[in-house]
Every structure is written in structure tokens, then in C-alpha cells.
């Protein structure tokens, strides 16, 4: 496995932990903020050249057109105890040191087991093919490419861009109009959540947080 090739963001040595260690990348989806503009979906497709019919992130709307209408942007949450990683028979899915759940398309056998395991519907397969020729899985890479040489043509073709290696955050979170989708190191994301909880009196609107990362921040 070429896991050693990944470029991992590190926490600053002068941060709260006081030591240089890999960051723990997370998503925060604030359902009190998401307005379903679709900016994340378009940015993702444009950044990673995702084909039509594959949604590495999509915005789900509940109760459309009625009071209580709520929008949720759902990418891969890069869970702490990722069920997809647990069930993948060939270790095509693995945790990078920074917590990003990465995918190796060279070893994926396309069994679809991760699809049944994932509570967020993140794994994607090309549709409409008979007799199991649906190819290998595709999913959100946190804009961190895959286990290939960073910025190589091969990485670009198989996984899309590698913004993490460039020192940037995922495209979806970078374009979010209302800052509903926040990406970054767990410490900083948790700070944003705390600020919002404090401002609102209650409720960070962090959909899927407990499911992906366990209780608490």
C-alpha cells in the first residue's frame, strides 16, 4: 500500500496541544445555515471533474415547501470509526493519519459492501450497467486526492484534485455561501461549533456529528 505517499496537514507546534501532530480533519454541517444553493455540489464536480450521475456531495432537502423545511449537505463524513473501512475486504478504504478516509481505486473490487455499511450514502458507483460491471467505487476524497504521487496526472485522473497537499481546504467548504459547511482540523471546527452554540443559546445544528465522530466534540 502506498499510504506513505499521502501529504498530511499538521497542527502547529504552538497550538493548544503544544505539539506538532497530524491534524484530524472533520466536516461540520450546520443545518441551521444550509440554504441549498448547491454551490458545494458544483464546486466539487468542477474541482474533481466528477462525471454526471456521481454525487460526492449532495444537498438533501426535507419538508420542501412547508414550514420546517431543512437542508442538509451530505459529503463523506470521514468518520472516526468508519464502517466502510471496517467492512472493506481488500483495505481499499483506509484512514490517513489526519483522519481522512481515503480510497485506493487500484485495489477496490467493487463489491459494494461499503455502500451497505455507510449511513451517509457516500460511496458512489456508476449506474445502469448490467451484470456487475459497475466498476470501482468513487467517493469524496476531502479534496485530498488518493494514494498516488501528489499532483500526478494519474492522481488527477483517478481521484481528482489534491487541495490538501496544496495547503487548502476542500472545494465544497471553501465556497459555502453561508458557512454552513465547515471543514478543517477538529480543534478549529469544534471552536466554530462552540461559537455558534454560544450565539444561538442552544443547538449547533451539527447534523450527523455524533454518528460520524461519536459523542461530544
Amino acid at each position, binding site marked *: 500500500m502506498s499510504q506513505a505517499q499521502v501529504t498530511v496537514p499538521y497542527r502547529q507546534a504552538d497550538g493548544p496541544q503544544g505539539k506538532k501532530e497530524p491534524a484530524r480533519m472533520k466536516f461540520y454541517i450546520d443545518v441551521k445555515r444550509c*440554504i441549498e*444553493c448547491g454551490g458545494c455540489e458544483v464546486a466539487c*464536480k468542477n474541482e474533481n471533474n466528477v462525471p454526471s450521475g456521481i454525487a460526492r456531495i449532495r444537498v438533501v432537502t426535507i419538508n420542501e*415547501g412547508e*414550514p420546517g423545511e431543512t437542508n442538509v449537505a451530505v459529503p463523506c463524513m470521514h468518520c472516526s470509526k468508519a464502517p466502510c473501512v471496517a467492512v472493506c475486504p481488500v483495505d481499499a478504504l483506509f484512514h490517513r493519519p489526519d483522519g481522512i478516509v481515503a480510497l485506493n481505486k487500484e485495489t477496490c473490487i467493487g463489491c459494494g459492501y461499503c455502500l451497505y455499511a455507510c449511513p451517509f450514502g457516500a460511496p458512489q458507483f456508476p449506474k445502469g450497467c448490467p451484470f456487475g460491471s459497475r466498476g470501482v467505487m468513487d467517493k469524496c476524497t476531502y479534496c485530498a486526492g488518493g494514494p498516488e504521487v501528489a499532483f500526478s496526472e494519474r492522481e488527477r485522473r483517478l481521484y481528482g484534485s489534491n487541495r490538501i497537499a496544496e495547503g487548502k481546504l476542500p472545494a465544497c467548504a471553501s465556497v459555502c455561501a453561508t458557512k454552513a459547511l465547515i471543514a478543517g482540523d477538529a480543534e478549529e471546527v469544534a471552536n466554530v461549533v462552540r461559537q455558534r452554540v454560544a450565539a444561538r443559546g442552544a443547538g449547533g445544528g451539527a447534523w450527523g456529528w455524533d454518528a460520524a465522530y461519536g459523542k461530544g466534540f
Partner: protein
Amino acid sequence: MAGLANVFGYGAMTNHQNDIRNSRSIMIIGMNPAENHPISMQHILTAKETNRAVIISVDPRFTKTSAFANKYVRIRSGTDVAFIYGLINIILAKGWEDKQFIQERTYAFEEFKGEIAKYDPQTVSDITGVPTAELEWVAKAMADNRPGTVIWAMGGTQHSHGTGIVRTFCHLQMVLGNMGKPGGGTDVFRGHDSIQGVTDIGGGPETLPGYYGIGETAWKHWAKVWDVPYEWLLSRFKNKAMMEKPGFTVARWYEGVLLDSKQLGQDVNVKAVMFWGHSTNAMQQMDRVKKALEKVELIVDVDPYVTNTAVLPDRKDGIYLLPAASNYEQWNSSVNTNRDNQYRQRVVSPVWEARTDIAIMVDLAERFGFRKQFTHNMKGGWRGIPADVKNVKEFSQQTMDDVLREINTGALSIGYAGATPERLKRQQEWAHVFDIKTKKAVGGPVDGESWGLPWPCWTDKHPGTPILYRNDIPVSDGGCGFRASWGPKAPDGRNLMAAEGSAPPGGPNTGYPAQKDYATDLTLGAIKQALAEGRSPYGNGRARFNSWNIPDPLPLHREPIHSPRPDLIVKWPTYDDVKEHYRVPQPYKSMQKPDWVKKYPIILTTGRVVEFEGGAAGERNSPWLVELNPEMYVEMHPKVAHDHGLRHGDMCWIETPEDMDAKPSRIKVKIKVTKRVGPDTVFLPIHWGGVFEGKSLAHKFPDGTVPYTIGESANTVTTYGYDRLTQMQETKTTLCRIVKA
């Protein structure tokens, strides 16, 4: 814009989007920022979270914005005046109005009160369909949570009495005393990129840049700026009368082609039409646009994409498509809805055969034979450009700066002098030092400046005016009173100057008229003198409840031309017919037929969706956006659909009255059953084109330029109806019927 200008003095958003973070109540009426201004929702939601701001969404449709509102009020389309007057009626009855503000800074409140008395809650409830309890809730919420802002967009303006609607929004804020305060104001959100800038530089047919009008003084002022003889400008027109006569508007230019020339305000019909970044599918009565496009001799379309214009008319030749560069391919500056200037860098040179707008313009000027006059002020980058500009794709950055400097020099009435290219470029470098809430820079070489130098930015030392009419800070910091545009005294002899004690600090503590020649003194002497004395160059006047110089001095409710309520048409009729308005006859009463509702019982309203913008020639060419919204549709309440025997996903015909043509217009669209709209209304998004009355026009596109999605245009079925003052199209209210396809 005309509505705002006639109340306060300037036709622009008074506060800025970031300032909504200071609001404690936000009324969003006739607007859907979650789809049309997604970024502004950041500020609105922040206000909701941190200030506990009350968000009130007033709309015929439960929009994506309404989902975030504390209160959603469903109103019948086109009854905004009655709704707002109902609120003011309650506010006055309870004594919640800001008496000091009204006394010191407004004009003609007494007459206004008399007009308001006609709109008691029961009457308003009957007109708008809003229960009286909801009116009271909203009135109390607005009164209890000050400062509050009122935000609107095309839902407020695209009506036959849109100017009146806009003025009532202003009046509500005047009554509540919310003007000239952080968190208050009348915040009209303008939709397109740099649309405020386009208005400022004279995009309309009735004024030269800077709202100088088109009278002789205006022409002479600009002749001085452009450094060309006034006589030469005059010689380009047929005569002086035509030079000073407003032209056709974008809303009704096609009548200049179609009507008999005797009915027009000019001797001959329009023979050629040039579109520069405008889509025909955004124009009302598109069936008539189509006829006009078939009749004119020449059509020129300047656009990066092949638009609807190119395929709509049934004609073999006479259409010229000029490939324009996108904004990423040229240096430019734009002015957004906040009145902010922003300098924009070129990202790439124009690709393929595309040329920048300025290159196309200079080339045209060359062919018309006035390149010398046209490029007179382009000093920097002009040298070295070959005399033959046919092959020039772009001019240097210096040229674009020169264009902006020309506007800095001339547009003094609205204070463009300070927004120089040098300062804008410096702000671009120091963007990180600006505060998100106040837009003020903290430290650095831009210390104290407002982001974007919002006009009026009187001199190159002035920080800009992020919040208009704010009289608690000095003029040198961006303070000002209401603009004294109408002299010191009204025709009825009453005072139009602000009261004693109500003026920006640092100058005379009372009202005063505008500085003489401040708008025409190119040396800036007049402006500098006023500033030195702590006075606002345009004076310190009063906001007007009574705008005596325009139709309906006191705004009043008028039923839309296509009203579903014959009984209300009798009581609140539309205007009398107008013989000539912007060179075309503009009938009102003769077009308003009470029995239409029998044949066409359902209200039709139109609007935008988040994926597309305007005619969407560009957006419909993006695979990602099309994937999110692939097909034209009509939003229909389950009751309407079921009553017609239709289901989600079925096709249906939408038909509208035969007002100017013999036959009804119709479009065939797919049904989306949703409770967003009420059971009396259907909604159409406006962006599609390339299909006309059920027939695809795909074969007419040049090879390989068909967008990923084509569909019926909503404006094929929008009907006659134009604003009395600005001639804005009434696309938000008409009547239709649904026929199973």
C-alpha cells in the same frame, strides 16, 4: 430605483449587505435571497443567530428564504402597497411611529396619514389575503425590534405600480424611524453583476451617466468631461428635441418596431437592435419580441454564448453574433448593490476569437468614424495601439483605468470622484484589514476607508458612505442627510430642509440646500469647500412622503392589470391610459379587463432559481448546473394539479390572455407539485429558452452551441403590464389557465 430617488434623493440601496448583521428585524418582501443572493444569507442568518433578529418573509410563494423566516406571510401577488399601508395603519393607531424622526426629517406626513386611514386592517386583509392577526403580529414585531431593515428585489418592482410599491417600503421605514441607522434602511438587492454600476453610468434611456438627466446642462457637463464640443454631440442627433427626449426602454423597445410609426414618439420605426449581454427570454411578452426580431432589419448580439436572441426569430439572415470576452478575460471595475466599487483583475487573455467589450466598442466607434472623440480620454494605454483596431482583442489595464477615471471626473452628483483606480487596487491588496460588520478598514494604508468606497465618495480622501443618510457621524466619515434635490421649499410653500438639530455633526446644525455647482464643478472646488465646512455637498433635506413630481404623489394601491378580483378593480383601478411614455403609447385602463378572471382563474408569477441567472445562456451551458436543474417546470399546488386531473411529472399547457395579439400565448411545461405556492397561484422559473410554444428551436443554433438544456421561456406567456414611471415589466402578476397536455 426611481421610487427610492423620489423619496430620499438617491436611487440605491441605503445600507449594505454586511450591515444586516446589525438588524433586529428583517422584512424580506418580494425577494428570495436564499436563491438569488445566497451570499447575503450569511449576513441575514448571522443577524438571526446573534441578534435574535425577527425575519419576516412576505411572498406569494413559500421560498427557500421563507424556510428560515420566523414568520411567513402569504400575500396575493401585486398587493404590496396595501400590505405595507395596513402595517403603517396599525403602527400609527398604536402610536409606535418615530415621532421625532418624522418631525425632523420628513415632509408631508399629515397628508400621508390621511391616505393611510383608508387602509384599515379589514380592507387590507380583503385585498391581500393576509389575516388581520398576522398583520398585527408583523407590525408589532417590526415596531418592537428596531432597527429593522426592509429588503426587496424584483418582487417589489416588477409591477405596473412598482414605483409606488417601492415608495411604500421607504415610507414604512420612515414611519419606524429606521432610516440612516446601522441595521436599518431600505435595502433593495440588485440582481446582476454591476447592475448598480450600469444604472450609475446611464444605462437607462432618460439620463446621462450620474443621473444628470438628458437636458442641455447635462449634455454640456458631459461634453466638458469627454472633452468634445457640445455642438459636435448635437450634430449627431436629428435635432435638439430628439437629443433631449428619452429613448425606448429595454422593456418595450419592440413596440418601436411593431407599432405604426404614427403612434410612436419618433418619425420612423426602429430598424436595428443591438443586445449587449442581455437575453430576450428575460423580456416580457416574448411572443411580441419574436415578431419584432423578425421585422427589424438588423440584429447584433454581443455575448460569450449563443443566446435565445439568435434562435428566436424565424429569419434567414441579418443576425450578427459578436463573441464577447467574459469578465475573467478583462480588467474591469464593477459597482454592486451596496454601491461598492470593486476592481477586478484579468485572469486570462480572451480565448479563441473573443474580444473584450472595450475592444468591440472602440472598433465600432472606428467604423462609425468617431474613434478619436470616443477614445479621447484613454491616454495611458492608447498610445501604441494600431490605428486599425480590427485585430485588437484587448486593451491594456491602463486603458480600463482611464475609463474609470473618466467616470471619476464626471459623475460628481453621486460622488464617484473618490473611487479612483489607484485606491481600488490598494483596497484589493489590503482586503484582509476590513471589518466584516462595518466594512471599515482597521490599520494599514487604507485605515478608515470603507470597503469598495461606496458612493458618495466625494474626494480621494473621503472614506466612502457605506450607510446613506446617516446624520450621527460627520460628513468626512461618511455621514449625510437626505438629499436636497427639490430645492429649499416645496411648491406648496412648506419647508424641505431638515429641522434644527438634525444634521451630521461638524457642520451647521440644521438643514441646508445643496452646495452650488457641486455636481458640475470639475475642479471639485465646490465639493471640497462644502466638506471643509462640514456640510454635505448635496445639502441636508427631507425625505418626501409626497412626491409631487411623479404620478401618484402619495402612493396608493392599484390592482394589477391582470387582477383576479373584478370587485377590487372597481375600487382600486389601475392608471388612466398614457398616450406616450418613452416614445410608445402605454395603455392601462383599457387593458384591464375584469372578466379575464373567468377564463383565466389562476395567478401566474415568475422568478429565479439558484442554479441559473437571467436568460441563463451561460449557466445552461454548464453541465454541473444543468445536472442540478435539468428541465423547465411549473410549480403547482396539489389542489390545482388534482383539480385539473394532473400529477407530478405530467405535462401541461399554461395559457395567458390574448392582450395585444389575437391569440393567447401558451407554453408546454412539466408539472412540479409542491406546496411552495398557494392554491391560487402557479410559479414559473424564467431561465429557459430554445423552445417556443411547444416547438424546439434546437436546430437553429449554430453547430455545437445548443445548451445542455433548452425549454419553454416563462416570458412567452407573461402579459402586458408596465410600471407607470420606469416602464418596468409586470412579470410578477398575470392570470393564466392550465390545460392538460
